């Protein structure tokens, strides 16, 4: 399989994630969209590592996974608290910073 196929898949996944984040309105789905975008990036990095024969990119992947785990913990906690406050998780209702 040519390397470019991996990168195209990665791009597709990333775009889908971004699109989903912008279109969807509930926080859990948006959260999943972020996860998809992160893993799209991971895929591109793994592919780069494989084809370049070095380990540099793989190390970055570990970092990304770690960050994603932390982000999941904090993010879910925030969503939970928002739910407790508003009894729903619609992102457009979280607009306290509206100018």
């Amino acid at each position, binding site marked *: 399989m040519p390397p470019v196929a991996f990168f195209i898949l990665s791009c597709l996944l990333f775009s889908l994630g*971004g699109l989903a*984040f*912008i279109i969807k309105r509930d926080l859990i789905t*948006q959260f999943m969209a972020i996860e998809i975008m992160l893993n799209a990036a991971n895929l591109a990095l793994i592919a780069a590592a494989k084809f370049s024969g070095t380990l540099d990119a793989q190390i970055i992947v570990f970092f990304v996974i770690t960050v994603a785990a932390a982000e999941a913990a904090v993010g879910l906690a925030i969503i939970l608290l928002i739910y407790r406050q508003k009894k729903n998780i619609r992102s457009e209702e*979280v607009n306290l*910073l*509206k*100018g």
Partner: protein
Amino acid sequence: MSAYFWLIPFFPGLSTLILVIFGRWLPKKYVSFQAPFAVFLSFLFGLSSFLSLPSTAAHHGEEFLSKTLFAWIYAGSFQVDFTLWFDPLTAIMVLVVTGVGFIIHVYSIGYMADDRSYTRYFSLLNLFTFAMLILVMAKNLVLMFVGWEGVGLCSYLLIGFWFEKHAAANAGKKAFIVNRIGDAAFILGIFFIILNLKTASFPEINQAIAEASLSPGLATLIALLLFVGATGKSAQIPLYVWLPDAMEGPTPVSALIHAATMVTAGVYMVTRLNHLFTFAPLASEVVALIGALTAVYAGTIALTQNDIKRVLAYSTISQIGYMFLGCGVGAYAAGMFHLYTHAFFKSLLFLAAGSVMHALSGELDMRKMGGLKKYLPLTYPTFLIGAITIAGVPFFSGFFSKDAILTQCFARGNYFLWALGLLGAIITAFYMFRLIFLTFHGEERFSQEVRHHLHESPPIMTGPLVVLAFFSVVSGYVGLPVVFGKNLNWFERFLEPVIKSHEEHHLTLNTEWMLIVASVAVALTGIAIAYWLYLKSPALPHQLVARFPGVYRLLVNKYYVDEIYNAAFVQPLVKGSEAIYYNFDLPVIDGAVNGSGRLMNFGGKLLSLLQSGQVRDYALVFLLGVAIILGLVVF
């Protein structure tokens, strides 16, 4: 002790500090001790330095006691040090300031006893003494200016001492502002001296003038500028208007600051710079003319005033006019001599007037006095001695000093000024005895309630009166005129090292006698007229008023000068400021400031529309941004 002469100003200075910082915890008894004691210490040091003078005094300023405490201002080759010195002229001023000052401090203990700001009063009085001593002991013009401003500040604070009273607060403000006008000219004069002579120290200025390194025109300009400063501080035409109002302050303050010491600072300054003024004859003539005119002019106002302190205030203005007359014709020693005797008899008159007020529960209007002679057995004779002295009755100090000035005027050929001086003398004798007769003689015009409280002042107040009365009588004997024998004028010889020697003006003994007889005759005439008008036929003054209503109204309203100044200077300034405030400050300056604020507000509101609060919108913008940047990088 004289080696420590430079400590003289710092006793009252330290006392002020203590009173200001710890005053609220100090018992009244202690304050009453400390404040006069500090001035007394200064007096002792001044006296011992004075006694050591004859041995150290040579004819060069450098050899007098002099002490540089620290280098003050350095700018290139120009240098001003914080230097105090003690030459004969300073010696006289220090003794007057601390001596009379001490007596007035003691008097204040009784006079201010029931005031609730007792400590504040004494801290200010001490601060004044400190500033005045700096003024007279400074060896350069710049340090002198510090003292000059210091006494002005204390004057302001003490005139407005009872600041709850509207009139007092306004009087203080007036004194301060009028003095600023004079001081602006004074400081310009100092700048000109520094600019042209590159020094501010008195001996160096004198030396530079002796070497004629100043053009006569410039010297005249500088001397006139300095004299404008003197007219402000010493209440001469045209800046005298603040002094009568200054009587709103406590009476001992009027005695110390507005009669004996501060207001004579101008005379001291002119005498201190007598080399400069001698070098600028035109300026000297202006000084003499202003002095003589003020002497007569202020005297005529005093003729019709009914407020006992205001009569004395105009009398002070008039007497300082005599001092300037003496200085202006070149008789600096005579001017200083009058300053020195005046300090005693005028503070005596003020303190005695304070004692009268004290007895009459604060009454100032002479129309509500009369017949007080028998109620005030100590105040009356001391007041009478003061009046006799200022009127110029022979063998009292005022006679010798006034006569010295008039004789010198005549001897130097200024017959017109001499005549003005004589006219002033007759007016002086008249209004002083009008004051005496209205206050102490005739029928009793005070109310029953006042009579009930009528009492002679306590010894702490009458004591100083007696001491001052004693000095009013004897202080003249250090400067006897030449008719009593040669070289009896010790005062003039003492001042010789300070005053530029000039050609001697000798009159024949016969002329001298004639002049003396003339001034005695004038004094007695004045007293006789007062006696005739106010004791013999008390209806006459009213007839005179009815006969010359215009003149009377002019005098009672003080020639409308306050009104004229108000219309010519104060109102235009107020109106102009108001116009600028409403037409420039409010629309332009405030408009610009508020407008810039409003602009920011509006811009912020506009930009805040971008902040939708929707996290998805932000993400969209973010993604688009990344896409654009990526596009730019790749393509």
